[in-house]
Structure formats: C-alpha cells, structure tokens
C-alpha cells in the first residue's frame, strides 16, 4: 500500500471501513427475526442470518488501521466480533456473506457462521466463540513462524473484557518469553456484553499489564483510522525487525448492542449519541475533505461499497445449502461417518 499518511492510503482506509460498515449493516438487517432474546420477542419473519451476530459497527478503524500493515502471509486471530478483521485482512465479501447465510459456498461451508468466520487463504485463522481464546492460538502460530524461520507476523485481536481472562496473561508472557512476532490489539470499546468493563478491571488497563511483562505498547484513538494505521505501522516494523511482541491499545465504541438482537437499552442514550459523533467514518471523511477529496469522490466510494454488498447479499440468498452428508465431513479422518 501507499506510504502511511498519504491521501491515497487514507482513501483506501476509508473505503475499506465503508465496506465493513456496509457489510455490518446488511448482516444486521438480514439477522432480524428469529428467536426471542435480550428482551425482544421472536419475530415471525425468518432471519436470513441466524444465530449470535456480533457487529463491529463503529469499530471499523481498528481492524482497518491494523490490517493495512499486514501482508497476505501474515496471520490473524480474532474474537467473536470478527467481521471487520476478516474483511480488512482481505477476505472475499461474497463468501463471507454466504457463510453468514449458512450456505455451502461460505468460507466454512456453512458450518461455522458469523462466530467462526475465517478465511485461512488470507491468513485469517478465525473468529472465536470463546473470549480471549484467540490469544494462545496467536502465540502458537507466531511460535511456528519463528521456528519455521518465516518472515511473517501474527495480529491478535481481543476485547477489553478478554484482558481479565487467564489466557491473556499466559499468552502475553509466552510471547515475550520466546520473543515472538505478535501484535496484540486490544479493541477497547469499554464494555463486555452488557457490563461496563472498567469496574471489573483492576489497575491501569492492558498497557500497564503488558508493560509489567516487558511488552511495549501504544495507546491510540481507535476511531481515527489514520492514527491507528500510524501506530500499527510503527509497532509492526519493530516486530518484523525481531523486536518481539508489541501491544496496541485502541479506544473505540460499540455502536450496536452486544449481538444484533440486543437493543442495548442498558446504555445511556446520550452516551451512545455522543459516541456516534465520533463515528470513524465521519472522522475519516472529514480528514479526507480537508485534504481536498471531494464529496463526490467520497459518495462514489460509499456507492461502490453499497453495490458490492448488495451483490453479495443477492449471491448469498441464492447460494446452495450444505448437503446433509456434509455434517459428517471435515471432522477427522477416522471417526464419524465411518465409525458411527
């Protein structure tokens, strides 16, 4: 990509965020209906996207700013809120949408859905239904890269709530002990499902915890994609140079409820409204306008993203379902299907 800070790069970052936003909005819409939960009654409209759908709406700048600094052969582990990471790492929108629709043409052949979205072909090793579970996996992947003397790195996304789970300590300690090429990225939206994270978290947060393990970190405005990009760029350079792990602490905000069917009524409406004034798309487009990018150019990007997602939705809705027999495949070479 173009050099950090250049207008053309910022245009790319904006455009990538816009694609993610469009994807999230479409997935949200497609998830309406279905089961009763979070205080809502079940609707009779059948949902096209079923199951827990954790939207990254409002957090796009973190995924995009970090992934702008990754190569295709770099690896990535994600959280339950993984759409943005997956798209930013280069995954195909249509195959992703197909997966959310549970179709056999999805990345996971309809076996995983949103919570397990992955595209191994671009190094995206998977969203994860278990908080903080990606951290040990990331350290192991980085360990393998080091042992195999490959030049690549691993980006490991996790949430602020995840930093209170044991694997956070075990994984960061491990990465530093073996001096592994990992960039830990804390997407700090300051909430864990329905519970504010701060009162559940002792001390000065993830950077302090990383520092106690000798891991340097940068704290950044996670809604400003240019700032995330710049910070990630520096940290990734240090990691690629063999400097061991680094941590990026990105402060952001979750515009939506915890899952798509959660109206998030436990949050103060004024807080949400204030946060939306700092929408990463607004910040980024304002910055672009300051550099002379026209409204028309921006509108064109927005339009292209909308078109791309609309096409993906159409393709996904028409894609075939998995065959029943596929339930017995991809498990183990001995075992189910043969042995049951």
């Amino acid at each position: 990509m173009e050099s950090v800070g250049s207008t053309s790069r910022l245009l790319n970052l904006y455009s990538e965020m816009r694609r993610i936003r469009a994807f999230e909005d479409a997935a949200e819409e497609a998830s309406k209906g279905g089961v009763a939960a979070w205080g809502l009654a079940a609707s009779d409209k059948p949902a096209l996207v079923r199951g827990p759908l954790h939207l990254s709406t409002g957090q796009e700048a973190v995924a995009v700013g970090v992934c702008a600094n990754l190569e295709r052969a770099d690896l990535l582990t994600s959280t339950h809120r993984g759409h943005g990471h997956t798209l930013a790492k280069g995954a195909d929108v249509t195959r992703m949408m197909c997966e959310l629709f549970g179709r056999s043409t999805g990345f996971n052949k309809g076996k995983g859905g949103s919570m397990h979205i992955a595209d191994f072909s671009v190094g995206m090793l998977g969203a994860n239904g278990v908080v903080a579970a990606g951290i040990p996996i990331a350290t192991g992947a980085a360990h393998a890269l080091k042992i195999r003397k490959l030049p690549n790195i691993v980006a490991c996304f996790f949430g602020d709530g995840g930093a209170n789970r044991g694997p956070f300590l075990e994984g960061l300690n491990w990465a530093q002990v073996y001096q592994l090429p990992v960039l830990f990225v804390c997407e700090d939206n300051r909430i864990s499902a329905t519970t504010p994270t701060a009162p559940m978290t002792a001390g000065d947060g993830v950077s302090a915890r990383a520092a106690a393990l000798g891991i340097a970190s940068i704290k950044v405005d996670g809604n400003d994609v240019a700032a995330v990009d710049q910070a990630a760029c520096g940290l990734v350079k240090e990691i690629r140079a063999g400097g061991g792990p680094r941590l990026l602490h990105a402060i952001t905000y979750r515009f939506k409820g915890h899952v798509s069917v959660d109206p998030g009524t436990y949050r103060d409406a004024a807080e949400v409204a204030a946060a939306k004034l700092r929408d990463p798309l607004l910040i980024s487009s304002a910055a672009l306008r300051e550099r002379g990018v026209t409204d028309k150019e921006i509108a064109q990007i927005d339009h292209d993203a909308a078109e791309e997602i609309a096409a993906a939705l159409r393709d996904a809705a028409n894609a075939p379902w998995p065959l029943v027999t596929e339930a017995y495949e991809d498990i183990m070479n001995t075992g189910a299907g043969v042995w049951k």
Partner: protein
Amino acid sequence: MSSDTSTALSLTYAEAAALGLREAMSADPTVVALGEDLGRGGVFGQYRGLQTEFGRDRIIDTPISESNIMGAAVGMALAGLRPVVEMRVIDFALCAMDELINQAAKNRFMFGGQGRVPLVARMPIGIWSASAAQHSQSLESWFAHIPGLVVVAPATAQDNYSLLKASLACGDPVVYMEHKELWPNASTVDTNEIAVLGAAKTLQHGSDLTIVTWSRGVGLTLAALNDTQLAGASVEVIDLRSLWPWDQRAVFESCSRTGRLLVVHEAVQVAGFGAEVAASAAEAVGCRVARLGAPRIPVGYASVLEQESRLSPEKIARAARALLTAK
C-alpha cells in the same frame, strides 16, 4: 426453604428458576450468585430483578474470568456461603474445569470431610438458535463420571423451581444443567412441590417399552408418542431429572416389566450418559437396550447441519419402533 403459602403459578422455565433462587436467597442470607452480566438479569433473564432486590453483594457481577468465578465459589463455600455459579453456557465452563473437578468435586473427600463445598454451578446446555459448535454442547456424562458431583437436568418449569431449591439445599457441588431451548416454556409451578435429588418422574405408563430421557428430550419424547410409527405401542416414559444420583430403581423396575429400554438424549451418543443407563440396565435386568443421541459430529451452523445433531419426535419414534420390532 419451602414457601409458606401454597401457590400454583404459571411461569416460564427461566422465571421458575429466578423464583426458586429468590426464595432461597430470602430464606438464607448465605446464598449468593456470581457470574457475568447477572446484574442485567443474566443472558436468558434467569436472574431478572434479583440484583435490585438483593443488591450487588449477593448478585455479583464478575469479570470475564471463568476460572476465578468457579474457584472463588469454592472458596466462598468453604468460608460459609452457598454460591450459585453462572457459567452462561456449558462451553465456557470448560475454562473452569480444574476448579470444578479438582477443587470443588474432590474437596470434601480429599480433606477428610473437614469442609463442604455447597455450590450450584449452572451451565446451560444444548443446541439453541444456530449457535454452532462452541455454544451448543451437552456434556452431562462428563460430570456423572466425576466422584463428588451431583448432576441435575430439569425438563420443566416446575422442576427448574423445585430441583434448583433441592440443589441449593444439598450441601455438595451440583452441576445444574438448564437447557437453553426450554427458557421460554411456561407451565404451572406449584411452589409447595419439593423435589428429591435422585427421584425420577414417570410421565406416562406403558408395558411394551421404557423410554428414559431428561432435559429437552422429555418434551420431544412425549411428542413422539403421537407419531404414527408408535400407533398401538404402550410406552412408558421416565424423566430422569437427576443423572447423579439417578433413579436406578425406577428404571430397572420399568424395564423389567417392558423388557425394552430406549435412552434418549441430545448429547453425543458415544460415551453419553445413555451408555451408562443402557449398560446398567443390560447388566442388572438383561433387557434389550438401545440409545438415541447425537452422532459424533460437532454441531453445525446451517440448519440442515444443526438438524443432524438435534433430537426430534420423528427420530425418537423411529428408534422406538426399531426397538419394538427388533428380533
């Protein structure tokens, strides 16, 4: 811990549990509950209103720290409380297995009876709403295998009220498995009904075949009785309710009358608890046995895949018919 007034209320499975816990907390100040998002009522509303009523000290919102949630509950129990542990879904309880198995279950024995660990670990089980492989497990056989653990799996609102209270009263660690698909099911709850751990309920009497099941399997089995495949068959249906202790007497008595036992559960069939029930009956009674559980496959996301792991009245009826006509 029984209520003074006799009442028959119409409650959902979730509300019944909340009521049972509420009554236990009112009666006994040592009962507390801890877990993530309890203050907002829990993921499924099963703690709704309790933090407002009992305060943050007794309905405790916790960090995302499953190991410490379970481990702290062990320490709380040793220091005089009766904690209810919320694990959200059983899949996350896998983050707390040392604490449950090595620390809670063995404590009383290992320390020669010096202490007791009266905790109730709630671990919602089962397939629900396209939640895929990491949010759909039913691992009851794991806990039945572990000395020191009581294992309970209520099928109805009534039982989720009565068995939760019995579990809170029992004084040893209880793995309490609510099924996620049962939360909204409403039925009449008699708050004077006292449950005994280890006592099954015979829901339907019959003479040709005994079906033993529990949790989500109960409703599906009762529905299966209307299937044309079972026309003319006289089927006895037993809801086991607790898997340890389990009601061997009721089951053996029934199978020795019917001569045929089918065990039905949603968990994976291989090494599921159905194997224990079937093997025990084969040993003790020598009747014909068969099991119906899920194939040994992870639960898939797409409906067509998920369906392969689910029980259904049709599958149950088919398995029952096969056993009735065998040999």
